[in-house]
């Protein structure tokens, strides 16, 4: 590499100024509706002739009505529509008929309704309501239009739409003929559909509405009887299961009863009894559980749910004064010999679900050794470099000698530990040793992967062999997946959920005003960034990656995501580490505040991107001409067809992202902004687990990382076995030097160096840092203050019974 070559070559390619964008609006012509025309009345005279029908300016008549009786000689003044300057008088007796402007509108509205053009109809009627509210027949006109539309909607099978329209007709005219029958028909269709889907609450709501209108309606009577019968069955089943001690079945049937008929006699008392023996909660989640998830930094669902089924050797509790705070739920872990030795003492009798063998020091030693092997799921190059030797001191004690002292060896040991003969220590493949068993859909339970569709539920049932069970601990957790937080919050408010794991920031002001709900913040913000696929052309070039950073107006997108009220700690980033919530936040120890985020500079972005794209094209053409020499072009060849107008496409990139509400908004905005520069972005949302690396056929992967311990996580993001697949030799050197740091001062200096290198070479395209919030019903206790993940203190969760399926 010589510097002059780089600069010279870049200037030779030239700078592309932003091309002018031609904007044109297609002209269109449409017929102007009557109500948008200048108003006029039509006066028809009795005497036939040329001037029998007169188009006049609106007549100035009291209440815009033709007088009932007129005497000969009483005249009315007219001004012609086409000649308003002249005033004429006509005797009332000469007038045969007056067609008022508003009447014509009403008549046309009727015609449109008959023709099924309901959107236009309501425009006409709204106009009349606003300008001519006293038009005779207006009310009937509305009613007829609604009724007609209801008929058409019903015939299309859209029964809910038809019912809504009929309700409005009822509100206007409860005594309209045939209305009762029509309402009954629509209700019947809807209720039978809901009952087939077992959506009892919805069915009851519809029936209640009909009951309020027509209490004796046969539809109401029939379906109410049916619901009561089903409720009786559920009650019986719940009672029987409770009496036999099958609390899981009792709870299931009681829940069913609550949705079928919550007011069933004895239902509430039974529910209270069952809840006291089998407490459960339902949690709304925005990322669904997957048994195949493996990326702990980026996969929120994995971080959340792994805590339910597993206890790792060390667990991160949150930022501390120097690095993170950790606990060892399996026993005790201690540093000795000035940090050159780790002593781990397991507590006895830790068994996996199903009463497997107890965990011993041999199992632990095996695990710690396996983590140094590149093929291991929890392989850590840093641990591999650090571990010198292992010794099993006794059945439950292991001593690990380290090559040198390390600032946070505990961070490297967040791994599940299971007896050697019980399978690979992979989340949701190994048997559970945590408070809950694996869901029935996990591979270990030999069932299929859940679809991840909205509404899909996963049930975690208590692990009776859990070594750290607490009295009164929850017996079941049901996670329900939502694609829209609004739906989750709605169900939370109605008591169908006890918590929602994450809500968008723009919803916070509204949620904080809800009396029954509480909002909590997670301890560690997420670092949002785009991981480039360094094996793909263009994004493998640091100049092009820099162009992407300059070309995205991150400030504007951040404002969109945060909403109208600023949220502390949500800010732009210049690197892959969290900036914390301020200078005194210990979490920000790796973030060098002297490195400012690159500003939004679309012109520079365009220049850099275009020059790299051109260079890539030239390189490709050169390679092709060297390998295949084709015939020279003919001298009289026709020139190429002129290209379409609009911004020229410099390159097309594929951006893969988890199909999450917030990320969807961000990626859509990124696409729009880069399109202005001629960079076409193909969005590829995915559900399911976040991959450990960028997919082979994608250029960029949007991730939101929980970087709780930058000193340990830096390698997992930027290292060769990390998400980026390894950066420049300079970054690799800096990461190696970080692993060798023996104190925090040294570690911080080296992390700052890594931050600078990652910023300069755009190892990741940094976007922003967002704090995440969860929301829960105030009755739910034990979540803790600022947890790292929702279930961090799951053993302490206490949820009172909130009976009723129809809380408003």
């Amino acid at each position: 590499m010589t510097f002059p070559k780089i600069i010279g070559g870049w200037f030779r390619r030239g700078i592309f100024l932003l091309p002018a964008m031609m904007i044109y609006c297609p002209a269109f012509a449409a017929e102007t509706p009557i109500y948008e025309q200048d108003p006029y009345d039509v006066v028809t005279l009795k005497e036939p002739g040329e001037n029998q029908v007169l188009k006049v300016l609106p007549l100035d008549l009291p209440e815009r009505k033709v007088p009932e009786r007129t005497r000969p000689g009483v005249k009315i003044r007219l001004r012609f529509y086409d000649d308003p300057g002249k005033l004429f008088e006509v005797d009332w007796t000469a007038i045969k008929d007056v067609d008022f402007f508003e009447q014509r509108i009403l008549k046309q509205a009727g015609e449109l309704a008959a023709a099924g053009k309901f959107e236009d109809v309501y425009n006409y009627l709204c106009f009349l309501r606003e300008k001519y509210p006293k038009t005779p027949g207006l009310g009937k006109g509305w009613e007829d239009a609604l009724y007609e539309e209801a008929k058409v909607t019903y015939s299309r099978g859209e029964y809910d739409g038809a019912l809504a329209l009929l309700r409005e007709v009822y509100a206007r005219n409860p005594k309209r003929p045939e209305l009762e029958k029509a309402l009954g028909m629509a209700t019947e269709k809807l209720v039978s559909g809901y009952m087939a889907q077992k959506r009892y609450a919805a069915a009851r709501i519809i029936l209640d509405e009909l009951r309020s209108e027509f209490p004796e309606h046969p539809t109401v009577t029939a379906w109410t009887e049916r619901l009561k019968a089903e409720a009786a069955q559920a009650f019986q089943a719940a009672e029987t299961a409770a009496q036999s001690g099958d609390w899981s079945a009792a709870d299931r049937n009681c829940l069913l009863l609550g949705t079928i008929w919550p007011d069933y006699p004895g239902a509430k008392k039974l529910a209270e009894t069952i809840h006291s023996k089998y407490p459960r909660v339902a949690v709304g989640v925005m990322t669904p559980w997957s048994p195949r998830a493996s990326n702990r930094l980026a996969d929120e669902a994995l971080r959340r749910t792994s805590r339910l089924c597993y206890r790792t050797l060390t667990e991160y509790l949150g930022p501390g004064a120097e690095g993170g705070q950790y606990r060892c739920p399996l026993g005790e872990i201690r540093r000795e010999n000035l940090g050159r030795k780790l002593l781990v003492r397991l507590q006895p009798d830790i068994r996996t679900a199903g009463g497997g063998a107890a965990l011993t020091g041999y199992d632990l030693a095996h695990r710690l050794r396996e983590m140094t092997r590149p093929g291991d799921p929890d392989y850590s190059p840093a641990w591999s470099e650090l571990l010198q030797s292992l010794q099993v001191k006794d059945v439950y004690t292991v001593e690990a000698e380290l090559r040198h002292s390390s600032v946070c060896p505990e961070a490297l040991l967040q791994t599940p530990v299971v007896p050697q003969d019980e399978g690979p220590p992979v989340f949701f493949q190994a048997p559970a040793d945590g408070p809950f068993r694996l869901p029935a859909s996990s591979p270990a339970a030999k069932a299929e992967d859940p679809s991840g569709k909205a509404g899909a539920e996963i049930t975690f049932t208590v692990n009776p062999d859990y070594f750290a069970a607490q009295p009164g601990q929850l017996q079941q957790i049901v996670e329900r997946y939502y694609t829209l937080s609004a739906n989750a919050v709605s169900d939370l408010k109605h008591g169908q959920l006890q918590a929602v794991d994450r809500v968008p920031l723009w919803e916070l002001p509204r949620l904080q005003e809800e009396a029954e709900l509480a909002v909590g913040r997670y301890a560690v913000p997420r670092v949002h960034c785009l991981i480039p696929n360094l094996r793909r052309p263009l994004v493998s070039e640091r100049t092009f990656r820099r162009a992407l950073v300059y070309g995205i107006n991150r400030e504007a997108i951040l404002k969109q995501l945060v909403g109208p009220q600023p949220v502390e700690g949500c800010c732009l980033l210049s690197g892959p580490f969290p900036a914390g919530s301020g200078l005194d936040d210990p979490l920000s120890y790796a973030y060098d505040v002297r490195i400012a985020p690159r500003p939004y500079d679309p012109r520079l972005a365009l220049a850099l991107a275009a020059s790299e794209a051109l260079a890539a094209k030239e390189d490709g053409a050169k390679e092709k001409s060297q390998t295949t020499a084709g015939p020279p072009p003919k001298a009289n060849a026709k020139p190429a067809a002129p290209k379409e107008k609009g911004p020229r496409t410099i390159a097309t990139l594929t951006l893969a992202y988890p199909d999450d509400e917030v990320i969807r908004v961000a990626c859509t905005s990124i696409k729009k902004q880069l399109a202005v520069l001629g960079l076409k972005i193909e969005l590829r949302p995915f559900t399911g687990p976040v991959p450990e690396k960028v997919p082979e056929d994608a250029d960029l992967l949007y991730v939101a990382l929980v970087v709780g311990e930058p000193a340990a996580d830096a390698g997992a993001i930027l290292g060769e076995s990390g998400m980026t697949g390894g950066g420049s030799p300079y970054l690799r050197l800096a990461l190696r030097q970080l692993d060798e740091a023996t104190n925090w001062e040294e570690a911080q200096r080296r992390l700052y160096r890594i931050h600078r290198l990652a910023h300069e070479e755009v190892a990741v395209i940094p976007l922003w840092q967002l704090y995440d919030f969860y929301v829960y019903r105030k009755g739910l206790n034990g979540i803790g203050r600022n947890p790292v993940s929702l279930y961090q203190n799951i053993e302490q969760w206490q949820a009172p019974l909130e009976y009723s399926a129809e809380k408003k």
Partner: protein
Amino acid sequence: MIWALGGIYQRAGATDQSVWQLTPYRVQIAVAGDAAIGSPEAAEAFRSALQTQLETVVGALWQLTVAPAPPALQWPAVDSMETLTAEGLLKPDEKADKIIVLTVTEEGCTLRVAARELDVRTRRFGPVIAKTVWQRGKLRDAATDAVLEAFAPLAMIDGADLKKGTVVLRLKAAALPPRDPNLVFVRPGTYFQPILRYNDRDGNPLKIEPLPWTIFETESVSPEQVACKLYTGLRAPPIVRRRGRMEQLALGVRPSTAASTLELRARAEPKPPLAGYEIYEQGSSPKDLKLLGRTDPRGRFVIPPGKASLRLLMVKNGQRPLSKPLPLVRGLEPELSIEIPSDDARLQAEGVVIGLVDELIDIVGRRKVLAARIKIAMKNNDWQKARQFLRELRNLPDGQRFLYRLADEKKRLSSRDRMLQKQIDELFNELQKNIVKYLSPEEIDALEIQLEEAQASKKK
């Protein structure tokens, strides 16, 4: 007679050559594992038959003795030939040129014959050559094949031309061709490893060591000499001139399928391992480099087995190669090590410079864009906008600010190692020149003058 010849060889030149090429190899084959062969009589018959067969095939090239291995050697030879030592094999006044240990062992239903050669002059062991037979009747042929394959030809280095990359060897016993004309120990493509033997006045070895990272590849063979191509990773391998009592020998080597592990350490004490350094294999041309991998945190790298018998490896760190191409015969040495100067400080400096280059590109880019916008504004007579862009242009980091930053970084990265400091200085000096060139204020001044003139002429 042989002693006398040996004495003459030490002092005279031309006579040495002819003696060297006329004297046969004194080959002793020590056979162990009689129990597997059968009865003592059968073992004796085997040895006799082996000697006869070898003499028939090899002829005058070898002065051959086939005898039972001494009792002290029987067990170690049979148990593990890899653990044999020269001291264990050599007698105090050893006269043999080659000692080949041959073992016969039973492995289930088969018999395994293994041979391993010790070249006495260089004290170097060859690889273990093993053959398996199902029938005792084939034992002699298998043993013959194993012995012939284990045999490594020895040569003297007659001269080397480092510029041309050539070496001339004189093979021992070259004037005594094998009886079987198909038996060729040296042909084009045969590899030799140079070995230096330092002797005392009496010709006894004081020190024997192979020349590291140096291999000869035979190009042509004649009775007088063997012409070879020289591959070396050393700047000045000591094979050009004869020096005192140093014998410059070359021993034939064969590639094998065994893997080799390379260990990289820093040259300066305490010689820490060099982790993360890139190991490349050079192809047909110096620019044809393929990345094999990087050294691990302990500076080690397992060289994956390749197809080529001779491979040229290169060590790089960042953009810079840190070694000449290092020749490696596949599987010759299980463990290799090389000491090179630690390049981490230079690499760090290179990283800083590249970061600054990127920053410079961005600033220059912004300057160009703003200059273009100023010209467009002037064309449109939008003087206010033009002045605004000019202000933005002036507010961009200028050359002086950049140079201060460069000076700070240079100070931070300074080293006491003169060679290293020189390399770091080169990186920064190049960047400095370009900062001055591309961030000069004159361009902006000229633009400002242009703007003022244009505005003035429009007012008129």
